[in-house]
C-alpha cells in the first residue's frame, strides 16, 4: 500500500513538473513571437519615419499649407487612424477617423506602438524645422492589424499547445498509473494465492496426521462395535440406547475425519453440461434430508445449462444453503444469471447476517462463528469453487442477511 501511495505521489509530481515545463516553454515561445513581431513593426515604422521626415522638410520649405495637404492625403488612406502637425509644441492641424481621438504624447517619440479597442496602432513622428528655425513635428497613427492577428494566433497556439501537451501527459500518467495498479493487483493476488496454498499445505499435514492417528483406531472401534452389537440384549432398553449412541458418535467422528480429508485432497473435476432445471429437481432430494430446512426458492432463465462438475456444484450449493439454514435463515433465494461470460449463483438469505469484522475470516478453515460448527463447510466450499476455476464472495450486513455469490 505504501508503494502505491509513493508511486502515485511520484506520478503526480512528475505530471505537474512536466506540464509546468511545457507551459513555460510555450509561454517563452509565445513571447518570442510577440517580441519579434513588434520588432518588425517598429522597423517598418522607422522606415516610414525617414520617408515622412524627408518629405516633410521638403514640403515645409514650400510652406505650411503644402505639409497640411500632404498629411491630409496620407489621412485618406484606410489604415491611417489620425494625422497631426504640431508647431512649437502646439497643435497646428489634426484629423482623426474616430471622433476626437488623437492620442498624442507630450514627449516626442519617433516610433511607438499602443493598443486600441480596434487593434494595435503604430505612431510614426518626424521632427523638423522651417527656414526660420521654428520646430515642427508631423505624426501619423495607423493600424498595424497584423500585430494583433499574430499576437492572437500566438496566444491561441500557446493555449492549444499547453492543453494538448497537458492532456497527453495526463493520459500517459493515467495509463502508467492504471498499468502499475493492475500489476500491483496481480502481484497481491499471486501473494494471496501463495499464502492460501501454504495454509492448505499446513492443513493437509494436520489432516494427514489425523487420518493416520485416528482413522485406523476408529475403524477398529467400529469393527468391535459391529461384533458387539449382535451380542446385546435388545430387550434391555438402556443397553440399546447406549449402543445406538456409540454408533452415532463413531459415525459423526468418521464424518468429521472425511471432511478434514476433503480439505487436503485434490478433487478431480469432471465437467459436463448441467441442466439447471434438472439440477434443482435433484437438489430437492438433497435438501429434504437437511435437519433444519428453510424455504428455498430458485430462479433462472429457462433451459439454462452450465458446464461444470455436477457433484462439486451439488456440494457447493448444499454447503452454502446448509450454512445459511444453520445460521437461522428462514428463506433462501437462489438466482442464477450470466455476467461477462460467467455463470453467477447468487444465494441470498434472510438470516442474522455476518458481522463486518468476521467477513474476512469466513472462508478460513477451522474458523466458525456459529454456536455449533467445525469451520470446515465454507472453507471446503471455497476450495471446490477454486477447483472449478471460479471464485466466491460474500456480502452481508449484520441483522440483514447475507448474499454469497459464486462465479463459475
Amino acid at each position, binding site marked *: 500500500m505504501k508503494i502505491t501511495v509513493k508511486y502515485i505521489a511520484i506520478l503526480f509530481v512528475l505530471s505537474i513538473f512536466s506540464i509546468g515545463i511545457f507551459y513555460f516553454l510555450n509561454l517563452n515561445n509565445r513571447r518570442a513571437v510577440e517580441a519579434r513581431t513588434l520588432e518588425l513593426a517598429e522597423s517598418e515604422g522607422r522606415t516610414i519615419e525617414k520617408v515622412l521626415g524627408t518629405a516633410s522638410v521638403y514640403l515645409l520649405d514650400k510652406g505650411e499649407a503644402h505639409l497640411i495637404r500632404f498629411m491630409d492625403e496620407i489621412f485618406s488612406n484606410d489604415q491611417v487612424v489620425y494625422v497631426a502637425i504640431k508647431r512649437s509644441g502646439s497643435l497646428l492641424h489634426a484629423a482623426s477617423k474616430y471622433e476626437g481621438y*488623437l492620442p498624442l504624447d507630450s514627449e516626442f517619440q519617433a516610433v511607438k506602438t499602443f493598443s486600441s479597442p*480596434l487593434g494595435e496602432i503604430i505612431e510614426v513622428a518626424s521632427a523638423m524645422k522651417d527656414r526660420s528655425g521654428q520646430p515642427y513635428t508631423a505624426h501619423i497613427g495607423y493600424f498595424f492589424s497584423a500585430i494583433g492577428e499574430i499576437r492572437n494566433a500566438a496566444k491561441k497556439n500557446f493555449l492549444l499547445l499547453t492543453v494538448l501537451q497537458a492532456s497527453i501527459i495526463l493520459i500517459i500518467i493515467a495509463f502508467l498509473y492504471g498499468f502499475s495498479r493492475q500489476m500491483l493487483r496481480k502481484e497481491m493476488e499471486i501473494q494471496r494465492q501463495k499464502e492460501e496454498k501454504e495454509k492448505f499445505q499446513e492443513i493437509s499435514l494436520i489432516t494427514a496426521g489425523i487420518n493416520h492417528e485416528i482413522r485406523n483406531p476408529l475403524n477398529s472401534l467400529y469393527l468391535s462395535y459391529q461384533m458387539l452389537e449382535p451380542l446385546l440384549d435388545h430387550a434391555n432398553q438402556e443397553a440399546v440406547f447406549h449402543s445406538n449412541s456409540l454408533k452415532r458418535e463413531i459415525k459423526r467422528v468418521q464424518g468429521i475425519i472425511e471432511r478434514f480429508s476433503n480439505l487436503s485432497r485434490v478433487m478431480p473435476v469432471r465437467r459436463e453440461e448441467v441442466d439447471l432445471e434438472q439440477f434443482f429437481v435433484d437438489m430437492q432430494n438433497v435438501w429434504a434430508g437437511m435437519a433444519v430446512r428453510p424455504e428455498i426458492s430458485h430462479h433462472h432463465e429457462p433451459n439454462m445449462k452450465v458446464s461444470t462438475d455436477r457433484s462439486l456444484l451439488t456440494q457447493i450449493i448444499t454447503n452454502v444453503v446448509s450454512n445459511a439454514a444453520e445460521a437461522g435463515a428462514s428463506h433462501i433465494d437462489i438466482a442464477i444469471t450470466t455476467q461477462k461470460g460467467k455463470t453467477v449463483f447468487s444465494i441470498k438469505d434472510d438470516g442474522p447476517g455476518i458481522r463486518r469484522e468476521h467477513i474476512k475470516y469466513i472462508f478460513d478453515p477451522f474458523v466458525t462463528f456459529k454456536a455449533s460448527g467445525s469451520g470446515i463447510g465454507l472453507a471446503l466450499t471455497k476450495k471446490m469453487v477454486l477447483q472449478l476455476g471460479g471464485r466466491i464472495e460474500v456480502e452481508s450486513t449484520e441483522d440483514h442477511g447475507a448474499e454469497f455469490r459464486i462465479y463459475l
Partner: protein
Amino acid sequence: MKKLSACLFVVLGVISLTAQSPVFHYFDQKNLIDIQGQVLAIDFEEIYGKKSAFLMLSIQSEDQRLFQVEVCPQWFFTADIAVGMRINIRGSLLENSAGTTYLIAQEISLQGERFTLRDSKGFPLWSRSGGGRHGNRKGSGGRGKQ
C-alpha cells in the same frame, strides 16, 4: 422664483450652445477634470461632419462656471436626461478661441448610473466593433445596470 430660474437656465443654455466648438478639438488625456453641476440645456450637433449628430450638454458647475460638453452620438446614449438634472462628468478640458470652456466627456454619472463613453486614451467606445448601444453602464440603479 422657479419660473425665473427656468428662464435663466434656458437663456444661458442657448448662449452656451451657440458658442462654436474648438477648431482642432480632440480628447487630451493629460487634461482631465471632474465637474459636478446641473444640466442647463440639451442639444444635438453635427460636430464631426456628416456623422451622426452628437449629444451636447450645457452645464453649470457648482462653482457657477459654464461648460459646453460633447457627450457622444445620440444613438449611443439613450438614458433619461432632462434640463435641471444633477450630473457628474469626467472629461478632457479644452478652451476655444471664443473663451468657452469645452469638455469632451469620458464618463458621465447620472441618477446613480455611470456611463463610460471613451477609454483612457480617448478612443470612442461607440466605434468599437460590436460596441453596442447606450454606453457602458456601471453603478447602481437605472436600466441595464452592471
